[in-house]
């Protein structure tokens, strides 16, 4: 076994539909401050943070090389700073590499996104597509997800009623998570009666427009105890890319998710994912993705998403105790927020939603249309 890297601190802003009171820079500084205060970490070039990894989006922040705007707010003045432009959970993989390579002892990760800044989130995700073949056809993450939703529901016997159960479960969990955006309880009937935005996706199947930021402090094993007495260990991380062009991929094959999970589990020594995790956080932008990603992660059998929901598996497997992305995290940091919840749970700091005795957690992130890119992170408290 090689050296290990610990998550020694995690902070999140809490998530809101429109955090109009703040610029996004201040939103980020709001969580950098408590990381400094609580851990005592410094920016001393010999012993402190000398490299920072940020995550932000050029379009939402309306500038190219969007991390340049973050320098002041993330403490990057006169030191290394790099950006991931996919989900912020990949910053954890990046930070892991920085520490394991011996270049850094400490990495500060700060991911942010203010979706409320754009006139329409769908117009922003339209820009993710090929400008000449796909954008003129009006594709965005939502209507492409609907294609995948229909195909997945046909394959796994998931119905509109199942999806209503997924949303109700998300809200039940979110109600106990002070950081979640959508915390009002819903009934299955309310979900079933919500307007169809893109068949089979209903309004309440979508995550709400959200603003927020997440920060983490990664530290090498030798120095973790300087910053916390509750380190959470990164035991496996992997990601995998699938085709950009939709026609090239099997929409319900979960190919890239399975590959990412396989590699992360191998590194973490996970043999039986359905039984080993005390809690699971999946990056579900739309309700159908909760069971679909669970299938890809091997937490239920292939095509058994509906059976998992019917059997109460969302509860017994402790799926998305945070409420999940469905309860509202912005794009770019949906996966990073999943990792944040996993760390909070493994530290035993999840309050009313705490999974008792949680020792091993799975956090998942996805970027791009219909799960083009997936990232899988395994965390342990011991």
């Amino acid at each position: 076994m090689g050296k290990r890297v610990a998550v020694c601190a995690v902070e999140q802003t809490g998530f809101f539909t429109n955090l109009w009171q703040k610029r996004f820079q201040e939103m980020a500084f709001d969580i950098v401050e408590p990381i400094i205060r609580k851990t005592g970490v410094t920016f001393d070039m010999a012993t402190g943070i000398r490299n920072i990894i940020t995550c932000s989006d050029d379009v939402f922040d309306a500038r190219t090389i969007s991390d340049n705007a973050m320098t002041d707010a993330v403490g990057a003045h006169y030191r290394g700073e790099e950006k991931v432009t996919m989900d912020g959970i990949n910053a954890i993989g990046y930070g892991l590499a920085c520490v394991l390579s011996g270049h850094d002892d400490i990495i500060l990760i700060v991911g942010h996104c203010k979706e409320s800044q754009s006139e329409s989130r769908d117009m922003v995700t339209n820009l993710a597509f090929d400008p000449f073949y796909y954008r003129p056809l009006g594709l965005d993450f939502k209507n492409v997800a609907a294609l995948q939703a229909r195909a997945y529901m046909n394959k796994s016997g998931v119905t509109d009623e199942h999806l209503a159960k997924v949303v109700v479960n998300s809200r039940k969990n979110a109600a106990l998570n002070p950081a979640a955006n959508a915390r009002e309880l819903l009934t299955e009937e309310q979900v079933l009666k919500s307007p169809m935005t893109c068949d089979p996706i209903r309004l309440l199947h979508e995550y709400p427009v959200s603003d927020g930021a997440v920060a983490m402090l990664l530290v090498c094993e030798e120095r973790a105890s300087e910053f916390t007495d509750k380190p959470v260990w990164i035991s496996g991380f992997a990601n995998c890319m699938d085709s950009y062009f939709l026609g090239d991929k099997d929409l319900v094959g979960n190919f890239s998710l399975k590959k990412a999970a396989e590699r992360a589990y191998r590194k973490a020594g996970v043999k039986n994912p359905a039984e080993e995790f005390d809690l699971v956080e999946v990056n579900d932008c739309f309700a159908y993705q909760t069971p679909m990603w669970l299938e890809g992660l091997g937490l239920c059998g292939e095509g058994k998403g509906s059976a998992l929901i019917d059997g109460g598996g969302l509860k017994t497997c402790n799926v998305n105790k945070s409420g999940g992305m469905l309860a509202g995290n912005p794009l770019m940091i949906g996966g990073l927020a999943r990792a944040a919840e996993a760390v909070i749970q493994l530290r035993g700091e999840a309050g009313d939603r705490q999974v008792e005795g949680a020792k091993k957690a799975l956090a998942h992130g996805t970027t791009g249309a219909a799960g083009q890119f997936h990232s899988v992170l395994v965390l342990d408290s011991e």
Partner: protein
Amino acid sequence: MAEYFGTTVDDIFSTQTERFRPEGAEGVDAVIAYDISGAGGGRWMVAIGGGKSETKKLDSLPAEFTAKMITDAETFVGMTVGRIDGMEAFQAGRVRAEGDMAMLLRLPQMFTKYVPPKKPITARDIIETAVDRFQPQYAQELDVTVGYDFTGKGGGQWTAVIKDGKCTLEEGLRDNLTVSNIVSAEDYVDLMLGKLDPMVAFGSGRLKLVGDMELAMKLPKIFAKFVPSEEAEAVEELIVLKKIISVDMEYSTGPVMGQFFEGLMEKKILANVCPKCGRKQLPPREVCAPCRCRADEFVEVGPGGEITMIDDTYYASPDPLTGETRETPYGSLHVLLDGCKDNETFWHMLKKNDLFDAQPGDRVRPVWADERTGSVNDILYFEKVR
């Protein structure tokens, strides 16, 4: 006279005066000298003043001029007809300027663009493309000579020699031609452009074919259809896809940026101060970057100050919000506002009339917009205090 891109340097200068736009040259009194080397080059002078312009070809350049352009004939024509990028040519050293560079950059406002006249296609233009249009797959085992005898205005005589799957073109008619086309040059052009039907021309005797008629019938295959170069260019043009990215966005200002903009509406320039290092930030931002702490205290600075740096800009990009392009040249400046020190400078625009007059160290003051909305444009520009 040497042609480049179908145009000579003389073509351009001979139309210079008629392309003059007095409305683009208000207040201009200048002499522009051109020193153009290479075949077809020469020396010219363009005088502009009092709402008039005059162009002269000279043996030697005047000693007094406002600006001088030194280039070669091909580059000059290429830039004028839009086939060579002026900025690239300038950077590559193919164009040099002396004197008032800004005056040269104003030329597009003072003269309309030179548009080469369309030249009619001649029989010579067409027959000279015969070798290029030759299709050997239809001329296997041929050993023939084809004569072209174009009569009348624009006429001439050519012989196409086809042998061993190759075609060569000679001026003049060979003896013992296999077949000969006799037609007026004008009709030949019309025939080749598809304006005159060959059967009608032949039937009416306007086209005479002498010799091997079977070969004559094969000629439209042996030589591919003539495509005028303009059309040929249009056919060969690459497909270019244009995209405009546009998503309306709305940004919070938060308390810090908000206070700064509110100050501008009241004609006040506010800086925020770091409680640790005492550094002022202009424009104010929430965090002092070196100290990594909040900077919540505000102080009013300026509004007058001293120039620390000026930047003269000779190009302008359109403002993406309004689509308007500001006039060039324009000046940007760093101002050390009263009450600030070291690097606590403020970046804004310089009044146009002060551009070539203002110096670092000069005193300046802001000129405020009458209607202020809480934006950086509430200050129109800084002007020199005289």
